[in-house]
């Protein structure tokens, strides 16, 4: 099942909002730093990755974490891996 | 019409109710009003005064003294596609129609497997304070709030008197609307364009931080008076107007109690097995670890409502008894 860019972004938004319920992800620039913007600590980030993995079914390794800095980065990874 | 400032009108609770009925009759020809003396006499409490002349005997119908009969007729009309407003003179008399309300109106949707809705609104007067004694003065809205399948609402302000009826008529299922007898003459200003209001949410009528006072209907103004008195001593009470007695807006109640940590429920019904008991129980269930003192209740004395003025006053919740309960809670 391939994931579209829109779907991937929605997954990112959902995952962030599960951790920071009032996060305004939609209005965030797609190159903004997610961890810094929403003050995600390493445990939050791990939960974020977990939510993305569960939602998308895509495998994400620690080596991929640098790609997950921004919404755009997350979406690219999910789209690429699901293709 | 431009967005110029909307004016206000001087009105009363009674007139606001009448205006709401008038609007419903005008806007929806499925709506009609029936009940004892609602036509020629203009309603026992003069709510429907003039409506017979305006809308004619087909739309404003006088009924015989037979609550079971005319409420049953209302249920039938609702099933057949009408939007009846049935007026019962007082809640005491509604017990004669309890079979229709509980066994028919409230259950038909369930019994028909979801096929038969009963879009009926029943209005009735409730409560004491007018020396009408033990057969015309009780507060049984809490009993009705016990029944699944109906909604129970209690307008306590001019806005709600004006705005709740229409929303209730839009509901596909039975709604009971309780008008406290002491409110009919309440006057005040209402926005000229005052319109429909929701019938689910509890309103904060006065914000505060020290204690949550839960009230509704005829008790609201007494509770607000109590809050004024308490404010003089620096106790800031948050006053909630339930508005909907069934379903209860738990979220609003708990939201308030979880920041005040204390609650006093003011309910003109009797204490035992009452709506106040239900609210108290829910607060304890949902906010136990936020409570800093036991939930207090201010209810009517458990006696048939006395006729004598001083006895009736003594039997009812009063601002002083609310103040005393708050002082027990706040300590």
């Amino acid at each position, binding site marked *: 099942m391939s994931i579209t860019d829109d779907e991937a972004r929605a997954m990112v938004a959902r995952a962030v909002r599960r951790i920071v319920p009032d996060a305004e992800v939609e209005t965030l620039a797609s190159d903004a730093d997610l961890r810094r913007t929403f003050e995600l600590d390493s445990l939050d980030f*791990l939960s974020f990755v977990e939510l993305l993995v569960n939602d998308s079914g895509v495998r994400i390794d620690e080596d991929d974490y640098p790609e997950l800095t921004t919404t755009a980065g997350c979406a690219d990874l999910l789209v690429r891996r699901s293709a | 019409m431009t967005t110029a400032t909307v004016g206000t009108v001087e009105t009363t609770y009674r007139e606001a109710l009448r205006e709401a009925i008038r609007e419903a009759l005008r806007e929806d020809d499925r709506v009609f009003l029936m009940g004892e003396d609602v036509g020629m006499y203009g309603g026992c409490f003069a709510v429907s005064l003039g409506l017979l002349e305006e809308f004619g005997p087909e739309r404003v119908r006088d009924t015989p003294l037979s609550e079971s009969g005319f409420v049953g007729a209302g249920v039938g009309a609702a099933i057949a596609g009408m939007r009846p407003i049935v007026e019962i003179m007082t809640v005491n008399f509604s017990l004669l129609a309890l079979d229709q309300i509980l066994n028919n109106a409230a259950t038909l949707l369930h019994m028909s497997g979801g096929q038969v809705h009963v879009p009926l609104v029943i209005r009735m007067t409730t409560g004491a304070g007018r020396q009408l004694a033990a057969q015309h003065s009780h507060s049984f809205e809490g009993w009705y709030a016990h029944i699944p399948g109906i909604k129970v609402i209690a307008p306590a302000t001019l806005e709600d008197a004006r705005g709740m009826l229409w929303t209730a008529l839009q509901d596909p299922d039975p709604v009971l609307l309780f008008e406290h007898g002491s409110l009919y003459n309440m006057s005040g200003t209402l926005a000229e364009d005052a319109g429909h209001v929701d019938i689910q949410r509890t309103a904060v009528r006065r914000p505060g931080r020290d204690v949550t006072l839960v009230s509704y209907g005829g008790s609201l103004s007494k509770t607000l008076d109590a809050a004024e008195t308490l404010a003089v001593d620096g106790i800031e009470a948050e006053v909630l107007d339930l508005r909907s007695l069934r379903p209860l807006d738990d979220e609003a109640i708990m939201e308030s109690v979880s920041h005040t940590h204390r609650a006093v429920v003011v309910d003109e019904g009797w204490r035992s097995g009452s709506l106040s008991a239900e609210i108290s129980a829910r607060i304890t269930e949902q906010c136990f670890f936020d*409570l800093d003192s036991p939930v207090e209740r201010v209810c009517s004395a458990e006696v048939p409502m006395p006729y004598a003025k001083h006895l009736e006053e003594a039997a009812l919740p009063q601002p002083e008894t609310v103040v005393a309960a708050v002082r027990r809670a706040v300590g």
Partner: protein
Amino acid sequence: MPSLGADMDSGTLVEWLVHEGDTVHRGDPMAVVDTDKSAIEVESFDDGVVESFLVEPGTRVAVGTPLAALAPLAGAPAEEAERRLPAPPGKPPSRKHAAPPAAKPPAEPAAVTAAKPRVPKPRVPVPVGAPPLRHHAAELGVDLTRVSGTGPHGEVTRADVDRAAAEARAGARPETALVRPETVPVRPAARGTQVSPYARRLAEELGVDLARVSGTGRNGAVRAEDVRRAVEASARPTSAPVEAREEAPAAGEVPESRERSARATIAALMSRAKREIPHYYVATTVDLSTATEWLRRTNRERPVSERLVPAALLLKSAALAARQHPELNGFWADGRFVPGDDVHLGVAVSVRGGALVAPAIHHTADLDLGEVMAALRDLVKRARAGRLRRAEMADPTLTVTDLGDQGVEEVIGIIYPPQVALIGVGRIVERPWAVDGMIGVRPTVRLTLSGDHRATDGATGARFLNTVEQLLLHPEEL
């Protein structure tokens, strides 16, 4: 009431398992008795018909008190069955003789219930009076078997019962007619201190010992206000009244009370720490290349839900190091160091909205890394949901504050009283690092230790950090 243990003086009858009028046989369970340790079924010592209950459920009675009276089975010799269950009154609670019959060889119970040679008992419970009369007697606490009847054929009348009650009340024959003199209510007469649920929760969150809080509510109930006052009082020595200002909310604003109280608590605790604890600080930078590489490999094998973060390694190393340096793991109390019973690392967690808590991961050093990780995630989640448990707030023996996620390289923290040290963890940063005369780029972390100079000296702190560093070189052994 049988003695169900050497240290048992009394027991509470929880419930009857039989009814009056039931036929019971030796060994049949008759009642449930609570011994303070557990609920135990008490069995009949004999065959018979349950004549009457002498003790109401919920009543606590001394060992040796008769619980029920048995009437003989039809056809059985009367004397044989006219015994009370299970121990005769006045019998000393000898362990051997009073143990439950079920636990004994079959021959023993006979010796328990009726010492041989049997002494005929003068007062035998026989059905006296009609049910209304028995009810009346029970209400007045009159033992019908001790009332002499004045009715036809010596029957006890209502008037006899009233007279017996009146005599007993007058103190004429206090021991003759009124039953249950030894019973005491299960509920202690004086209830313990009452504490409102909110105050209890607040005390847990703030680590306040409720036994030391005096209540100002109704009947002396402790309320939230009392707990807050206790926190402030403990943080403010009587000689320094100047502190009062720091907890006062700014005039004119009505901040959310929980946040305000949390802030006031932190203010009070930290002021106390800085005022009372002579801090010393030591710091070191640790090469984490082995640790991070090991983590990377391990995490590749682990499902995402079980992946480890570096904080788990650091916590585990700190816990093991604390075990090696117990003088840093414990409390300063009454002018001396009291070691912790085990290492319960406190983890400083900042809660969204401004509060800070440092609940414990119990027995941190005994957990494997996966367990530390799971405990950490669970703790942080519950801390943020405000669902910490009392022990977690009360038990930390040494606290770790990790601000690496906030991007700072170093934390020089303030000790949580009454603990005696605090470990600060900074961000993992790649730094140029000299190894064997070469410069490489290595992931490193800055560790600090704030120590209470009353309890330990800088050298202890230094040794502790060295131990942590050594442990982190061998992450696979953690």
